[in-house]
């Protein structure tokens, strides 16, 4: 009885794998309509969105949207320094982005 139950669970697991594989390909986003328009938005999508969310709503990293970024860093220069140097779980982007890119992405986060 228990053996048959375990067999059934294994079959369900296999079905689960199939569902995940189908979803990975069936749920592909329409890249044509979601390509960020500005350089800051493009940098944000590539470097920040995985932690702070596509819309800045937060995730692993804190929320940036709704004025949260500007509220925490009233002076934009302080936010650029923070993003450049990193702090705690926030990685340093100084070695990955140019000063111009850092300013673009920081300014973009303040518009979310």
């Amino acid at each position: 009885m228990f053996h048959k139950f375990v067999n059934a669970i294994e079959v369900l697991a296999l079905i689960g794998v199939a569902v995940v594989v189908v979803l990975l390909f069936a749920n592909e986003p329409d890249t044509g309509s979601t390509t960020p328009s500005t350089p800051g938005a493009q940098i944000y999508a590539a470097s920040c969105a995985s932690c702070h969310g596509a819309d800045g709503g937060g995730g692993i990293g804190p929320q940036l949207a709704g004025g949260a970024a500007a509220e925490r860093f009233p002076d934009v220069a302080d936010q650029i320094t923070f993003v450049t140097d990193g702090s705690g779980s926030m990685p340093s982007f100084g070695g990955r982005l140019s000063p111009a890119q850092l300013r673009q992405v920081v300014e973009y986060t303040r518009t979310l």
Partner: protein
Amino acid sequence: MAETLAAPAHTTAAATRRLVVVLLVGGAVAVALGVYGKAHDPTHEQPYTWFFTSTIQLKVWFASAALALAIAQVLLGMRLYDKISIPRHAPSWLGDAHRLVGTLAFVITLPVAYQCLWALGFQSTDTRVLVHALLGCFFYGVFTVKVLSVRVKGLPDRMLPIVGGVVFAALVGLWVTSALWFFTSRPAGIPAT
């Protein structure tokens, strides 16, 4: 005497061929996941949160549950191989319990892996993220090897416990580079659940 104990050459060759095929299939799974993660355009969305604050919290707790089940499965496996003697008399259902716990651990990783692949893709923004991405692909590849090792006859006897140990080590590595990192390094204001 040594000649009578040695395995026939054709048996060894067949076992080697099977072993190579199993390893190649596992490698193909790992590479396929990596290629998908790299080629796919990440959505950065949270497809489900269920009863957690966000998908991130769901992922770290599901990964932790999978690790707990994996620890239980290793202990059950050690009892199956008589490496531990608790309980003194192994019940007849021990093998099925080992399979069930392992299957549940694997199933619990699926929503985590789906969100990783679909929403985040294969990233290398820092060492932790790169190691996590590589381990994620490796885990499902070596898990495939383990499942095939159970099903394919004639493989070396030691293969199953060794591959099982590697699967467990990969899962521990995944947990350390994700859930443990989240629990210990999450920014202030980000809830744990």
